[in-house]
Structure formats: C-alpha cells, structure tokens
C-alpha cells in the first residue's frame, strides 16, 4: 500500500478513498436532482403554452390597448366606494374573529401533545385540511345561495375557510411549546385543563396573535374579491365597473385597494412586532 501522494501522510489510503467516493456520489446526486427539477419545470411550461412565444407576442398589443383605456384613473365616483370599503374592512375583521374563536379549541385537539386521543387528532386534522382545500370563493358562492347577497355570506366564507389555516398553525405552535414549564405545572399537581391554560397558552399567545393578525391581513385582500360572487364590499364595485367596461374606473378602484392593502399591511406588521 504505497501511494505516490506524500501529503497528507496520516491518512490511510483506503478510508480516504471511500470518503472521497462518497463525496463525489453526493455531488452527482445533487446534479441529477437539479436536472430533474429543471426538466419538470420545462415540461410544465411547455404544456401550458408558456413557451409559445408567438401567441405571447400577439397578446402584448391587446394588453397595451387595455392599459391605455384604463388611463387616467377615474375617481369621479370615489365617494360611492367609501361604504363598500368599510364593508370589506368589517368583513375581514369579523371573518378573522370567527376563525380565531373556532380555531383555539380545535387547535388543542389537533396538536399531538394536547390532543386527548390519536383518533381525535386525526379527525380534527382532516377537518382542518378539508376547510383549507375549499377555496373561499366557492364557500362565498355557497353562502350567497344560503343567506343571500351582502357582507354576511362573505364573513362566513372567510371565517370558515380561515379556520383551516389558522387552526393548523395554532396547532403547530402548540406542538412546539417548551415542555419544561408544562412538566413543572404538572408536578405542582395542576389538572390537565389548568396545565393548558396556565402553562401552554401563555407560551403560544404571541404566535397565536401573530398568525391571527397575518390572517386578518390576508382576509382583507381576500375580501376584495369576495364581492365578485355577490358577497358585498369593494370587490362588488370592481366587478360592476369591469362588466360595463369602465376601465378607467377599474384602475381607480384597484389603486384604492392597493392603498388600503398597504395600510393594513403596515398596521399588521406594526402589531405583529409588538407581540414578539
């Protein structure tokens, strides 16, 4: 076993060869994984005509015309949007409140460490997945059919759909709780519910607040489109202007929505920082 390499002298050749082989194998594996991902992206893009550059090019002038027609934004009816905007804001707040109120108890059932039984855990998780997988627009259509036009179906749709995500995130926060203070409360003779209330809840409150505020921000954006299915708010106005092809008004409404979203976003960012 004499190798021509003089350094490093302490390395015995057999193990070093196997280590380097292993290293090379790792590199090849990464290469093929990256190649596979790129291939999947390419095929998917081709399948949806993204690589059909002629059609894309033909579309550009149409988009240009549309943009031209929406300029300058027409704010003459701006005062009529105040009340729908308030509707939208109220919808997002009430919807989030419903979601949080239902999610807190569900989350304790859907967290591995606090669920009373594995069966309860699985059923609750399945319910949460189900709620998350029905889009809020579909829920909106169903609730409009059930309770009629207006903000109420929007609130119910936003609330119900949000439970899916809020409940899941709450449950995950509970699962990541520091077990040490929980054990301490247990050792002090606290009952199960006392442990949840006094040792688990205080630890997860910042995350609960964080998720809730983020979800409120999301629900505000989502509630702007809820109007499209007749569930009230600024989206209803947007849809009306689109139908009668008042593109200058459409662009004006979009600008107003953008401003509102920016405001809600910065407010929520500010609140979330406070809860750290």
């Amino acid at each position, binding site marked *: 076993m004499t190798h021509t390499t003089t350094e490093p002298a302490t390395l015995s050749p057999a193990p070093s060869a196997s280590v380097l082989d292993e290293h090379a194998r790792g590199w090849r594996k990464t290469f093929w994984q990256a190649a596979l991902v790129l291939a999947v992206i390419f095929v998917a893009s081709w399948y949806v005509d993204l690589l059909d550059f002629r059609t894309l090019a033909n579309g550009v002038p149409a988009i240009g015309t549309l943009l031209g027609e929406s300029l300058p934004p027409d704010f003459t009816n701006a005062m009529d949007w105040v009340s729908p905007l308030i509707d939208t804001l109220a919808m997002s707040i009430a919807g989030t409140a419903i979601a949080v109120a239902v999610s807190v108890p569900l989350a304790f059932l859907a967290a591995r460490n606090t669920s009373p039984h594995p069966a309860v855990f699985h059923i609750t998780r399945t319910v949460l997945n189900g709620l998350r997988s029905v889009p809020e627009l579909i829920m909106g259509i169903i609730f409009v059919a059930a309770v009629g036009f207006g903000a109420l179906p929007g609130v119910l749709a936003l609330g119900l759909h949000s439970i899916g995500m809020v409940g899941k995130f709450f449950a995950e926060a509970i699962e990541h709780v520091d077990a040490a203070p929980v*054990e301490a409360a247990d050792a002090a003779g606290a009952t199960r519910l006392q442990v949840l209330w*006094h040792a688990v809840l205080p630890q997860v409150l910042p995350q609960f607040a964080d998720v809730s505020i983020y979800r409120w921000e999301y629900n505000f954006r989502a509630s702007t489109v809820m109007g499209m299915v007749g569930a009230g708010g600024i989206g209803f106005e947007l849809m009306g202007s689109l139908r009668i092809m008042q593109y200058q008004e459409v662009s004006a409404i979009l600008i107003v929505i953008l401003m509102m979203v920016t405001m809600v976003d910065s407010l929520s960012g500010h609140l979330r920082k406070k809860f750290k």
Partner: protein
Amino acid sequence: MASVPSPNMMLRIEDMGVTYPGNVLALRPTTVDFHKGEFTVLLGLSGAGKSTLLRSLNHLVLPTAGRVISAEFGPLNSRRTVRQHRSRTAMVFQHHQLIERHTALQNVLTGRLAYHGTLRSVLPFPRHDLELALHCLERVGLVDKALARVDQLSGGQQQRVGIARALAQQPSMILADEPVASLDPATSEKVLGLLRDICREDGITAVISLHQLEYARSFADRIIGLANARIVFDAAPAELQQHHLDEIYHGRTNPTPIPGTPPAIQTQPVMPQPTHLEIAR
C-alpha cells in the same frame, strides 16, 4: 422487606424499580424511607439513576415495579392520589422550567394551581395567593423582581424564582433535580444554602440530586449514593468512606479496580458543561 413504618416517615418507596422502554434498566427495585424534615442528597454520576429515583417520587417517572407510598395520602395508585401528593410535594428543576415570558410573580403563582378547581383558575388568582406568592419571592430575596419577566433574570435568580414557586405550594416535601448543575459555584452554594435554610425553618423534607460531593457533604443530613442503577450508600455524610466514593464515582467505568493501583481520589467530579452561563445583567 417492608419494615414497620417509623412515625416520622414522610414517603416510602417499596421495591420500586424503573425500566425504560428498550429494556433500559434505570433503577433496580429499591426500598427507601424518607423522613420528616430530613435533607437528603442523592449523589451519583449522570446515568446512575438519581434523576430517575427523584422523579419517580412524584410519578413524573412512572415506576415499572413496586410502589410509592405517601404517609399522608397512601399509595400513589390513582390520578387523584398522585395529584394530591404532587400538590404537597413541590419540585425544583435543573433548568428551572419557568415560563420565560411571564413575570416572576406569574410563575410563582403556578405553584398555587393545585389549590383551585379548574374553572376557578381561569379567573385571576385571589388576593391571598398573590400575597403568598410575593412573600415567597421575598424569602428568596427577589421581591423587587416580582414584575420582571423571567427571561430578564440571571440564571441564579431564575432558580430562586423556581424555589419561590415550590414554596408557594406550601409543600411538606421538596424534590430538587440537580438544582445547581447549570449555575456557577458561588451561585450554586447560595442557592443550596437558601434551599436548606428554608427547608429547616419550615420543617420541609427535601430530596435533592447532586453530582458534586463537596455540596452533598456540606448540606446533607443524609446521603444516598447511587451507581449502576442501585443504592450503594445510605447514611450520614460523616460515614462516607473512600471505598464508597470509589463505588459511586467509579462504579460504572471501573467496577473492579485493578489491585495495586489505587483509584484516583475524585473529590471533585468533572462538571458537565453548563447549558447556560450566568450573565450579570
């Protein structure tokens, strides 16, 4: 095995053993009595079984053989007796196990939970409990930090809050699991001294696991030495001989010392790396 319980017996373990899943023997079946007002130190290396013994005393670790009998509540054989026993048996932990974002006072109040029903404890604690909690903080010298968040306190202060939480239970017994393993030597001595003084004043029975011999010697009324999942010594500190120490501190690594080579006297075992250092704030 089962002797007649002495009148000042507080807690007895009877042929109690613990085997962890995967057939890991943590404690061989053992019978021990703990007596009223006694300050007992469980001495041993990591893995000797002292933590297992200590934590089985309030069923944080469930014995797989034998039983634990409380003088006050009888054998711990139901949720109810375990809860009653725990309400009078406070615990102090190595990593204090406080809620870091709560204030010292809020943490101490956790010790009062067992005195209230589940529904009552959703509401704020009664004034009597608040005053008691403040008094406990006063005894550990932290009344001025009552409203400070625990994560703002130093390691030694956090452990004192842990002791105040234990006191708030108005316990007849305190179990402390390596209470000073994460503290520097000066703070360790202060915390152990505080614990012993309080236990003396209130007549509280204490069982404390430690791995430092010098602390065991200076604080304990009684030392129980563990090695290889069994008790190898159980008497007053004065009776601790070199061959006992060899067994406690070398039992695992060197069960049969080679004749002619006396094992090194290890009066100060290697301290485990502290998981957090006390930083002066």
